[in-house]
């Protein structure tokens, strides 16, 4: 009995360690947009954790917006962590100039092409254990809960940030997978919005996105409308829609190209 009591502090420490917020270990990467950063525990995207990004509508298949959203984050991660981005995907349709426009230098990327989801998940896990890697991205259709747990643990252990871009090539798979729970600390959904016409300029205006934070460990879901200010990829918050309407956010900008 005495012996057991002596172990109590040690056990308390361990419980504390298990329950610790992940953000506390490897720090966060702020978006630089106060409204978004406020919604995230620690004031930014948790480093050394798994984040999931979804598309919407037809883009659930193409994954263009998810890739663009990830590229903006990865560009800043690669710059601050001076390392390589490992991007694992089944079909190599990433386009260098498009990535560069979102602030991610394509020469920092190592592309890994694998036909099966299981191989992509394996490659991601290998990347999460390697030195010299700034971040790992994987594009997968089906995601077993166990695999997401393994990725989250590997990311936590190494401090490397991981992104899962979900791409579904048919509606059935999308419906099955879309709402399945997994171990990612955040789940984002990026949707295209009709662009705002520029005064006096016909044609396609500034791209606008709806950025939804569907799930966030230690935080609340939220939703924003974001606009790319010009071709150099300034992004500004057009309006905060969901739960923080009071924030004066219209003038805030952040520069993705650095």
């Amino acid at each position, binding site marked *: 009995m005495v012996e057991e009591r002596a172990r109590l502090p040690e056990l308390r420490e361990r419980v504390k360690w298990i329950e610790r917020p992940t953000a506390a270990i490897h720090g966060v990467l702020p978006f630089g947009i106060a409204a978004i950063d406020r919604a995230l525990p620690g004031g930014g995207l948790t480093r050394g954790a798994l984040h999931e990004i979804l598309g919407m509508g037809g883009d659930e298949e193409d994954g263009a917006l998810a890739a663009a959203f990830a590229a903006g984050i990865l560009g800043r991660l690669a710059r601050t962590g001076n390392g390589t981005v490992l991007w694992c995907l089944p079909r190599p349709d990433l*386009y260098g100039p498009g990535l560069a426009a979102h602030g991610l230098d394509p020469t920092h990327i190592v592309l890994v092409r694998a036909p099966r989801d299981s191989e992509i998940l394996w490659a991601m896990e290998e990347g999460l254990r390697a*030195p010299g890697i700034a971040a790992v991205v994987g594009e997968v259709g089906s995601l077993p809960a166990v695999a997401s747990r393994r990725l989250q643990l590997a990311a936590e252990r190494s401090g490397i940030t991981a992104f899962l871009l979900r791409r579904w090539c048919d509606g059935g798979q999308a419906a099955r997978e879309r709402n399945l729970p997994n171990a990612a600390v955040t789940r984002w959904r990026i949707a295209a919005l009709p662009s705002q016409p520029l005064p006096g300029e016909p044609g396609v205006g500034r791209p606008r996105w709806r950025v939804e934070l569907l799930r966030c460990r230690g935080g609340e879901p939220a939703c924003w409308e974001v606009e790319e200010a010009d071709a150099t990829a300034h992004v500004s918050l057009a309006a905060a829609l969901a739960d923080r309407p009071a924030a004066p956010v219209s003038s805030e900008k952040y520069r993705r190209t650095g």
Partner: protein
Amino acid sequence: MPLADALSFFPGLATAAAEPAKDAAALRRLAEWCSRYSPWTAPDRVDGIRIEITGSAHLWGGEEALAADLATRLDRRHIAGRIAIADTLGAAWAMARFAEGKSPVILLPGDCRNPLIPLPVEALRLDPPTTQGLRRVGLKRVGDLSGMPRDALTRRFGEMVVRRLDQAQGDLPEPLSPLGEAPTRRVRLSFAEPIVDPADLLRATERLVEDLVPRLAQEGIGARHLDLAFHRVDGRVERIRLGTARPSRDPRHLVALFKERLDTVDPGLGIEDVILAAFAVEPLPPEQIGLAGHTPTNETNGIAPLLDRLGNRLGFAAVSRLEPRESHIPERSSVRVPVASAHSHASVAPAPDKPPRPIRLFEPPEPVEAFWLLPDDPPFRFAWRRRRHRVTRADGPERIADEWWRPEGPGAGDAIRDYYRVEDEEGRRFWLFRAGLHGGDQSLRWFVHGVFS
């Protein structure tokens, strides 16, 4: 003699159908097993195996010991065989098949003439018509040919007779083409008791790697291809072949690469030899290897172990980098270069202000069904991948002509493309182009080439 006749003479005769393909495969397997004696090993026609043991006989304690080991192992597997060792391939071939006395026959160095003299002319590896011709004129033994004028022999029987004679006697070199690429460095580990346990296989692998690495270091080289062969007691050979993105001799890294694939090795009833060979060695100065095994000197070296693991599982073509190229053709301005090929560091001037480029580019462009009004108009509606899109806004056209210095290929009709950036009513943005010219010979076709964010 037809089979029916043979059976009438000897009713109880056991017969089996000839299976040349299976025989050849079995011979090849046996030849591969023989590579435990030397890397230069090859099946010889349908009934023999030749092994170049120059330089490897001393590992076995001499030629006699090697031949004895081979004879014992063949016997244990109930393979009847005759072994001959000689300076030349021709002499060894002849002695193995036609020498009197018991196997193995080992000719002394430089002694390739006299032992051949009493052998029949069939020992010269000639085709049957030639040997029959020789016999018909009374030339029955190899010794009979030595006294003949060479040009007469050549005139009558072709140059093959003289060439085979010279090759057997060592007057004409005869290179042996081995089964595989000849390895540059090789280490071997044999077990008196065959091993089966995966832990033992791993230990053997570690020992071989530890054995090989100092040799590579001594010469200042690193390996890009490695072959680990497990010789089973039943004669099969299980292999693990590895490639590395950069020349390597880091023992921890190499063992880790092999370890990942060890479970693919089926030890069967046991493994008696393990042979590790390094191919495709390249210079690797000492300073490129960290002291602790993992202190990378630059970014690429740091992730090299990761790239090797990925490449060995998924293929090295699957691991690539995106490199910018100077080209205004969209698909040629960003290319995938396998990381295993040398990094080019091509410096490309930043492109002048171009209209926005998509983040996903489809290769090849995907055809769409499009509807448009005026010649230079973007489509007002298009259908792509089971979905219909109504175009609400569009930018363009941006005309991109093919690079005129490229040869006209099958896509020559698409030499002119007019690109449009269009937005549909959902707000999704696509990169469409129209191939061909109005009034041209070919009808106009529309494609979607990429998707914008």
